[in-house]
């Protein structure tokens, strides 16, 4: 198997508090890799380090054989690594259509075209993406006024617009009802399959994690305490002790 | 330039720089406190300063220049401005905290226009001079040089205000709350603090400092309309240099500006204003958030 994304000895502290300690994980092409851990384990911090939003104190990040440590987010996206966010992160006063269109404009390197009318750019592809995530009916609505679940779908469409090969999803079902979660997971699986994406995701719902992950890594107090197949996670004594034992959502 | 080789003149310049710096510090520290806690750029701070100077002049005039009238004027200025700030914050500003920065900024700009014209209606466009207070009309003999007593006292008052503020901010419960608020506003509510009360308190204290600074400046400068127009910019420069919300930052920033102005006048006559900006740019290149500032949260 080919490794597409890899962190080596990632380390990050905030004013003395160590958020990520010596984390080395790798992501193989085509796999669906879940990162789990209690709240505050450092999952989101790890995502922020990988995508360039935060700077590593030490260690490195490699993407498709290229060292991307210290590369700003907008460059990393262009290399083919996109992400979604735990908290809704859209453009609230723009329409749903424009939310996705802007991402496509950026992907095509047209963000600095001062004299190309924006309205007619990438319309077909925007529509396609909205169709894909099931938001075509809401295309002209103001994004901030959508229902929560739909905003999450929009978030996914924005991430997909960058044409990533690797997608990082931070809690894709956070705040969703059970029915919405089922829908969302189905959608994510379909899209990953159809586009041949490699997926790295964090998730609090153990049902979802064990349902779709090929591999699971467990973070605890910023340290990686386990990485392996789902079956073996449940058997690992330490994981049971620090995590599954305390969690009520265990499958 | 060669004048700087003269030790007496050099001493004079250094003392003038510190004196000016301390006067600026008293005003700017109020501004930075409001900025740090309320996150409001208060353009009206300069107008409050001017109002303070006028109130001091009126008090001194009303009391016929009696002994102690200046100090009553200083206290009156702080109290009047504190009250004005209380009315403005409770009556209007507090409804705007949830709105965009632009709205708050324009709000304080509107207050500048209104307060400036109200001052003009009350005091007209004449220039007033406030004499040095009794007992401070002379000079102090240092042995090798003499220096006027009032500007010297300004230096002392500046240090007293700085130490007093520092003690209040670090040793009292309220002070600690205010300091916490400059770091993380959400924490205030989480700690169960009465946030609106903290905001009112900070706005009142900050504005009272502007009034105090104006009254103390009154014997140094001509009290007239427009005396606030460039002062507010000097205060902004101090806050930018020192870092938003930082007490010692504004202390250092004010001293730096005092020196840049006084020595600039000698070394680059006529360009001392520009020198202040060059100083600010230099510091910003080195530390974009000022000497004691913290980077902003980069989220939305």
């Amino acid at each position, binding site marked *: 198997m080919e490794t597409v994304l890899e962190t080596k000895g990632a380390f990050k502290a905030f004013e003395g508090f160590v958020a990520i300690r010596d984390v080395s994980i790798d992501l193989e092409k085509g796999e669906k890799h879940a990162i789990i851990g209690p709240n505050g384990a450092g999952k989101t911090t790890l995502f922020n380090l990988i995508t360039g939003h935060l700077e590593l104190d030490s260690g490195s990040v490699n993407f498709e054989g290229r060292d991307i440590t210290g590369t700003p*987010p907008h460059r990393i996206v262009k290399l083919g690594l996109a992400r979604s966010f735990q908290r809704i992160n859209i453009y609230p006063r723009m329409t749903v259509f424009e939310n996705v269109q802007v991402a496509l404009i950026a992907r095509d390197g047209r963000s600095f075209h*001062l004299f190309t009318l*924006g309205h007619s750019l990438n319309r077909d592809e925007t529509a396609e993406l909205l169709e894909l995530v099931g938001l075509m009916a809401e295309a002209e609505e103001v994004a901030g006024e959508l229902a929560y679940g739909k905003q999450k779908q929009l978030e996914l469409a924005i991430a997909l617009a960058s044409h990533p090969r690797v997608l990082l999803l931070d809690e894709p079902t956070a705040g969703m009802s059970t029915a919405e979660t089922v829908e969302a997971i189905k959608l994510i699986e379909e899209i990953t399959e159809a586009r041949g994406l490699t997926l790295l995701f964090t998730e609090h719902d153990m049902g979802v994690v064990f349902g779709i992950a090929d591999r699971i890594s467990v973070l605890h107090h910023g340290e990686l305490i386990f990485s392996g197949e789902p079956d073996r996670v449940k058997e690992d004594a330490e994981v049971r002790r620090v995590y599954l034992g305390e969690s009520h959502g265990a499958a | 330039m060669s004048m700087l080789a003269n030790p007496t003149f050099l001493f004079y310049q250094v003392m003038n720089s510190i004196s000016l710096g301390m006067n600026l510090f008293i005003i700017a520290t109020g501004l930075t406190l409001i900025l740090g806690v309320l996150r409001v750029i208060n353009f009206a701070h300069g107008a409050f300063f001017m109002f303070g100077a006028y109130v001091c002049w009126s008090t001194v005039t009303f009391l016929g220049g009696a002994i102690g009238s200046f100090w009553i004027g200083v206290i009156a200025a702080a109290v009047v401005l504190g009250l004005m700030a209380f009315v403005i914050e409770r009556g209007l500003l507090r409804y705007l905290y949830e709105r965009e920065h632009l709205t708050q900024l324009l709000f304080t700009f509107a207050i500048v226009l209104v307060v400036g014209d109200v001052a003009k209606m009350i005091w007209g466009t004449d220039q007033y001079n406030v004499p040095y207070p009794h007992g401070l009309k002379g000079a102090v003999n240092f042995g090798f040089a003499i220096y006027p007593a009032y500007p010297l006292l300004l230096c002392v008052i500046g240090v007293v205000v700085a130490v007093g503020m520092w003690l209040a901010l670090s040793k009292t419960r309220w002070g600690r709350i205010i300091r916490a608020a400059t770091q993380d506003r959400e924490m205030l509510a989480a700690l169960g603090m009465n946030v609106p009360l903290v905001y009112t308190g900070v706005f009142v204290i900050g504005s009272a400092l502007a009034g105090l600074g104006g009254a103390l400046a009154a014997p140094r400068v001509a009290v007239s309309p427009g005396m606030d127009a460039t002062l507010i910019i000097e205060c902004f420069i101090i806050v930018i240099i020192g870092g938003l919300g930082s007490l010692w930052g504004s202390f250092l920033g004010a001293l730096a500006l005092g020196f840049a102005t006084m020595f600039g006048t000698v070394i680059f006559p006529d360009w001392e204003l520009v020198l202040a900006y060059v100083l600010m740019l230099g510091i910003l290149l080195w530390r974009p958030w000022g000497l004691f500032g913290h980077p902003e949260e980069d989220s939305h």
Partner: protein
Amino acid sequence: MQAKSKRTLWLTVAVVILLALVPTLGSKYLVDLSTEILIYALFALSLNVLIGYSGNISFGHAAYFAIGGYSCAILLTTYDLPLIISMPAAIILAGLAAAFVGYFCVKLTDIYFAMLTLAFGMLVWAVAFKWRSVTGGDDGFVGVAVPEFIGDRYSFFYFTLVVVTVSSALLWLICHSAFGRTLVAVRENRMRAGFVGVDTKRLRHTAFVVAGTFAGIAGTLFAMYNRGVYVESAFWTESGQVLIMTLLGGLYSFFGPALGAAVLYTLQVSINQYTEYWPIVLGTVLLVIIMFLPDGIVGLVQRIRSQFARRA
């Protein structure tokens, strides 16, 4: 969306035609007023690229207006250069100044950004104030050598109308371009825009340069119209004034700021005839807008319209 753009286009054409007919009314006063409003409208529109479209509050926008004005005046008068060179050169100088200042300012955001633009704006004021030999200091730069073909009030009015119309059209295009759309995204959510591949710092810098350049155009017109440039044009209160125009008209519509400029300027001229206390009137108007009309005149009109639509 398309229908709305089309309506805006026709409305604009109608306004330009009506303006072109103003001189036929025979009132010199109206011609002068229209010229002044046109210049301020362009100034406000340029600021809105920063404020409305990219969400960056500049409190030092008067600097580029003044740089455009001084440069044009100095090139025309001191160096006796023709308009065809002076005006473009002045506009480019304003743009370059904005590029330099913007480089520092876009490193910061929100309050820091606003304070830094203000400080830079006042740096320009300080230079204009102190550099007497070139700018005339606080006496102002007077006696601008305006070319003959735009020497009288009527030809200058038409010249202004053409320049402002063309500039506004360019600004409209920029605001509705791929760039403009991305700018709005950055305003709405800077972090998200970064994560779809937008270099947000560079984008904000470009917006800063665009805004400064077009403010420079307005400045050149202002200098020639007044046959002089004064330091007050660079003062922070001037930046505040144009901000109020923008806010009064409405930040989130393209022509809102132009409307705001027209209303505020007319108000100022008429009130000045009755009282010297224009600032207190302006301050009160501003307080009312802030407290009760957060989206400006255009927002108010839209709200009233939707009220009627609901009732119908």
